């Protein structure tokens, strides 16, 4: 599938547009008055991203997969599909950022968001180790800053710093792995690399582990997961939502491209697949069990997102076209669902000022609509129909059974039971318990119009992914076919 072609601007059209949008944000910002900045900046960023998405869907649909820009960029359905969802996630995050104190009225925050989004889009489409590394760094550096954006909040600063240290270390390991591969193969292009390795030597195994380390950090897989809870808890909640969805999805696409095309170790060795299967098992199990004990909802969602990385890895281990489809489908459903969960946390935490699970008591009496959003999001996370999470889980397990990974599928379903337990526990607070101070229940819960819109889009998306399967499945299959 390696077709070399001259520079193709369509392949990087979304990135160009996002860059232009970022410039626009920076240039227009000083003209706005202090008090109107929040709304204007937020809508400019979000609206701009929706426009980019619309343009992309209309004019930028790829045909046969091609390599362009000297093999640096892959222009295929996998990149297209994921870019679409990443841009959507970026737009929703911009909306969520609007009403957060000390974040929503700062143009830098939106610019950083857009910058990291450009990086993610390049991650989704890169076809070369050098391009890939640049994309990963472009993604990460703005995110380090965003995580520590609330300078007067010591948790936020800690989050930013912790994320920076772990990120820098793992990306150094990743780069080291890349450079050794270049030394062995003499090329950095994915498709040329893939021809170089026909069996799993100990040296190759070591190098693959270097790469796995770098990517495991991005997708927060065990044993490189422990930054996630602290960082999610400390960073501004919309940023945490962005980290747990878009950043993770981009990481998974890189993982797919690297381990399917560049180093198809799974094709030549069952041992490597087993290593990944073990990582998946540990990631799911640890994430789920640690999530049970959490008292803070952002930490709980962090562990839950670790567990979800484990489920998605099952699809990677299956190493088949169906596996690829299910990974992409899962990512779509997961982006929607987790953003909705974080969105509800943003909307509620802004009013109550607390992220403790306890503080959610009485929510359904204060705001039935927000409670319903949480119900949909958490049930979808736990894998209940008619929501996207159910279908995605069934696909992933189905691909595992197809590839004879019976035990992995069993581990997966058992884990989803553990998951159900803690998701239901949160819903118990939301629906069952009364607020400590019953007066509180009668206070209205103001949810601003942008939040209402964003949460509505996400909830509708979750239901669409769970009920109208066929178009999404086609999209995911096209994406998977571009690498399998």
């Amino acid at each position, binding site marked *: 599938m390696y077709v070399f072609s001259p520079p193709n601007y369509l392949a990087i059209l979304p990135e160009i547009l996002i860059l232009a949008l970022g410039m626009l944000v920076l240039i227009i910002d000083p003209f706005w008055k202090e008090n109107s900045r929040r709304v204007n900046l937020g809508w400019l960023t979000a609206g701009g991203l929706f426009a980019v998405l619309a343009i992309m869907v209309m004019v930028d649909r790829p045909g046969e997969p091609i390599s362009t820009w000297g093999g640096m960029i892959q222009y295929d359905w996998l990149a297209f599909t994921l870019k679409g969802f990443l841009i959507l996630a970026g737009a929703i995050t911009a909306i969520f950022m609007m009403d957060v104190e000390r974040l929503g009225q700062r143009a830098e925050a939106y610019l950083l968001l857009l910058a990291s989004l450009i990086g993610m889009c390049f991650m989704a489409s890169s076809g070369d180790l050098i391009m890939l590394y640049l994309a990963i760094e472009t993604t990460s550096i703005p995110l380090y800053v965003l995580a520590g954006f609330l300078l007067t909040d010591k948790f936020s600063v800690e989050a930013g710093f912790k994320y920076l240290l772990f990120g820098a270390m793992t990306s150094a390991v990743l780069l080291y792995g890349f450079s050794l591969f270049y030394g062995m193969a003499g090329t950095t292009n994915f498709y040329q690399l893939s021809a170089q390795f026909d069996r799993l030597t100990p040296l190759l195994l070591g190098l693959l582990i270097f790469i796995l380390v770098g990517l495991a950090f991005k997708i927060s897989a065990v044993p490189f997961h422990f930054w996630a809870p602290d960082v999610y808890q400390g960073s501004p909640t919309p940023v945490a939502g962005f980290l747990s969805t878009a950043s993770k999805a981009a990481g998974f696409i890189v993982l797919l491209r690297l381990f399917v095309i560049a180093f198809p170790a799974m094709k030549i060795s069952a041992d490597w697949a087993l290593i990944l299967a073990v990582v998946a098992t540990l990631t799911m199990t640890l994430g789920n069990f640690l999530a049970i004990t959490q008292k803070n909802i952002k930490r709980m969602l962090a562990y839950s997102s670790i567990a979800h990385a484990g489920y998605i890895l099952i699809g990677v281990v299956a190493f088949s076209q169906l596996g690829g489809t299910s990974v992409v489908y899962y990512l779509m459903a997961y982006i929607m669902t987790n953003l909705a969960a974080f969105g509800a946390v943003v909307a509620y935490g802004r009013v109550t000022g607390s992220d403790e699970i306890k503080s959610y008591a009485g929510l359904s009496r204060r705001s039935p609509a927000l409670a319903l959003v949480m119900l949909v999001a958490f049930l979808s996370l736990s894998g209940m129909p008619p929501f996207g999470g159910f279908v995605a889980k069934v696909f992933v397990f*189905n691909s595992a059974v197809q590839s004879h990974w019976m035990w992995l599928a069993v581990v997966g379903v058992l884990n989803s039971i553990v998951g159900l337990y803690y998701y239901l526990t949160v819903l118990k607070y939301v629906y069952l318990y009364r607020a400590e101070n019953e007066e509180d229940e009668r206070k209205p819960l103001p949810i601003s119009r942008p939040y209402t819109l964003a949460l509505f889009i996400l909830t509708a998306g979750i239901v669409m992914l769970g009920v109208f399967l066929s178009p999404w499945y086609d999209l995911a299959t096209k994406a998977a076919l571009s690498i399998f």
Partner: protein
Amino acid sequence: MQFPVLSIIVFTPAVAGLLILLIPANRKTETRMAALAAAVFALILSIWVYFNYDQGRAGYQFLESYRWLPQMGISLQLGVDGISAPLVLLTGLVMFTGVLISWGVDDRPREFFALLFILASGVFGVFVALDLFMLFFFYEIAVFPMYLLIAIWGWVKTREYAAMKLTLYLFIGSVVALIGALAMYWVVGKSTGVYTFNMLLISKAEQAGAFNFVAWQVPTYLQWLFHRPTLTFEMVVFPFVFFGFAVLGGIFPFHNWSPDGHVAAPTAVSMFHAGVLMKLGAFAALRVGIMLLPQGAQYHMSWIIFLALINIVYGAFIAFVQNDLKYAIGFSSVSHMGLVMLGFATLTKDGMIGAGVQMFSHGVMTALFFAAVGMVYDRAHTREIPKLGGMVKPLPWVAIGFIIGGLVSMGMPGFSGFVAEFPIFMGTWQTIPWAAILASLSIVITAAYILIAIRKVFFGEMPIEFSGHIGQIKVLDKIAIATLCGVMVVVGLFPWLMVPMVQSGVNSIMTLLGGA
């Protein structure tokens, strides 16, 4: 194209539930009226389906098919056969009476009815789905509202514990069954080249021998346990699928979520839960377990009979020693569902017919029981059998309902219970006579605890603190009781209304099993 009655039945409650959510929270009466309207509509349609089912033609009828995910062989296939038609009717009945009984729910009735109806949609869906994926889809939809219904509106003391226990048990069961179902999907696909979740096609492939390959070489040191050197695919997968669903049917040793759940749930939910949801488990175990994997069923049935016996006798004994009236009824459900399992496990025509009728009969009976218990509890604020007494005077309707329910439960001729239990014992006698003898013990025990409960709760001296405090029941409650009692008497007196229908369904199962 014919009138798509089944999909309308399935989606009416869900759509009604979503519409109910749009009614402003303080319009409680309007909410209830809307719920009642939807329930009546669903009931009428399910009655229509029941009486328009052509028994002569048998097989699946009212078929509907919509493409859903053709790329993976998933489609929305709906149809009823002689076994599911009574269950659809049962669901309609319980939904209707459940709404009547829940008129008094005052805490967020909007959310209550919405969740109850989403649950009902899931239940209808499972009974009519002919596609494995859709069956799971509806099955899960039937499970999760249960958690919130019990946790929010349930009995304060145990609701959180019971709700979580129930949900986790049922979820475990369903995901275990899911793995088995996915395995079937791939095996059928590989052998026929058609990847499909359509149960009719899977069944056809099974009949053609797609599942007859050796899936597991039994190690020599275990051969005494399995009686054979190799197990075929069907024999390996059958326990996953059957037990996965039978958890919801309350099979021993996976039954103990059910009494807790029944007791903690609010009245209408207990009715749904014991009346319909447990049938869901038994039905899915039959449809996916026995009908898709008949050879697996034949291989495993001997020890499932044994488990069902434990259900029947042990459940009855536990019910006998309960002080809490609702727990007694809860364990009697375990016992009676054991009879359903026993009927299936005999794999004889009589046993299956009995089990099919028993599902309906027990559903109506136990809904009535829970309605009666709920009415007593709402007025006396206790369910302790020793503390109650003399309830027949203030609550004559409830007493009559409970007594009729009791007679059904004892298998008294003239009521639906007899029509159901007698063939089950006949079928059991044909396979394992001593099992029939043991199982019949339960009738004695059942008679004992039901009669004792009737005597202590409804007759005898009314404790002094109750006199004058027990209010009348409402007209709506009377309608509910009369409906349920009427159905049981009608089926008991005119068995030809139901037995031939179930028989037409059983005949096709017998063909699958290779017998007459």
